[in-house]
């Protein structure tokens, strides 16, 4: 096995093109488990931790351009104000040791339906930036990035450069159910983002379909029905209907972590709560 360690982004892209048999390696929290348990034996590892561009984030207009190699620990300490939904989700990932190493780019690279970064990125309306030596850079909505369980739009010669996440214009929430408070893969999860600037609502569902996905009918309902001008208390019936529509947008299965019926139930409850918390935050801010 070869160990490729580019020092620059252009070198990384060149190596990626030359060595399609090399597995990109960021924090290693998914890759190393696969190597140790012999689930993967790539001909080479392409270590991205020495590429400075990937470890940075910067403001780009009204969005945060978050380098693929920024670990969860830094999302929490540096971006909780601008990207509250992603930060809440980051806080639930693994343990302190996992959050030091694990990255948002690695979460996207694995493209697990249960990845915790995905629902808040969907709810915020984020884009993924992919790059290759041959074709340069392209950006696509995160919703289009996921193509199946652990499958994504990433081409064999591409690397994930960054995610572009709109700076929150309103409150965001993320809820996850698991068997304990730390170190759990989500049984199911949901993110809600309020966009009061354009009177819209974003959603993201995790671990309840072949890919992370939005709940467009739930978004549409509350965008139309919420009292954006008066910001009166959220109607219980509307919150409940929002929860039902989120649950209806999912396509869960029975597996070791939970049954499909439980996941649907939990989604309805979590979505209702997340919307209520977010709306109450918005009213308090007014």
């Amino acid at each position: 096995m070869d160990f490729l360690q580019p020092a620059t982004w252009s070198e990384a892209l060149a190596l990626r093109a030359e060595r399609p048999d090399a597995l990109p390696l960021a924090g290693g929290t998914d890759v190393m488990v696969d190597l140790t348990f012999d689930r993967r034996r790539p001909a080479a590892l392409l270590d991205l931790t020495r590429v400075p561009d990937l470890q940075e984030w910067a403001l780009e207009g009204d969005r945060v351009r978050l380098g693929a190699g920024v670990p969860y620990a830094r999302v929490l300490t540096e971006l909780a104000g601008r990207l509250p939904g992603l930060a809440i989700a980051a806080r639930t990932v693994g343990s302190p040791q996992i959050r030091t190493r694990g990255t948002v780019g690695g979460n996207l690279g694995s493209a697990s339906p249960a990845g915790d970064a995905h629902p808040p990125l969907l709810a915020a309306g984020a884009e993924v930036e992919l790059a290759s030596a041959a074709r340069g850079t392209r950006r696509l909505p995160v919703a289009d990035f996921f193509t199946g369980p652990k499958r994504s739009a990433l081409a064999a010669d591409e690397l994930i450069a960054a995610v572009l996440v709109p700076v929150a214009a309103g409150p965001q929430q993320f809820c996850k159910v698991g068997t304990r408070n730390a170190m759990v893969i989500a049984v199911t999860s949901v993110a809600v983002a309020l966009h009061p600037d354009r009177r819209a609502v974003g959603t993201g569902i995790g671990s309840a379909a072949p890919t992370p996905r939005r709940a467009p009918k739930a978004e549409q309902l509350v965008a139309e029905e919420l009292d954006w001008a008066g910001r009166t208390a959220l109607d219980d019936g509307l919150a409940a209907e929002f929860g039902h529509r989120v649950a209806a947008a999912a396509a869960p299965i029975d597996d070791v972590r939970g049954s499909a019926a439980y996941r649907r139930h939990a989604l309805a409850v979590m979505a209702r709560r997340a919307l209520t918390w977010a709306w109450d935050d918005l009213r308090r801010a007014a």
Partner: protein
Amino acid sequence: MRVTVTVNGTERTADDVWPGESLLYLLRERLGLPGAKNACEQGECGSCTVYLDGEVVCSCLVAAGQVAGREVTTVEGLTGAGGAGLHPVQQAFVDAGAVQCGFCTPGLVVAAHDLLARVPEPADPEIREALAGNLCRCTGYEKILDAVRLAARRQAGR
């Protein structure tokens, strides 16, 4: 491949490292430092916790090649280069009876050491949060919490 890394303040070199092997393997099998323990090898138990460039990581999840030129501190190095005896966090674990079989102890000591360096007087929820990635199969968690509280008190001079 050859990997050169600073471990507990000393530059160390290992040859014939397989690129897919972990920092944990490098430390235990090549550099003769068995303090970090190998239990789950999948990031779940924290027994292999070490510092990498000043941050706590599961050494079983770091590729050996990733640490070239970096600084690693293991439980053996907490007392400083050439340091003898026990670090106050280790002494607190002994005094509080927080060690049963001892397998989880090195990882917990490093995690607790990191917490107390960042938060000198942590509240209980902060202790639980900081140690959430460390499992004790002897389930001596109450004594472990006692040990961290004791180390914090002693550190504050009370």
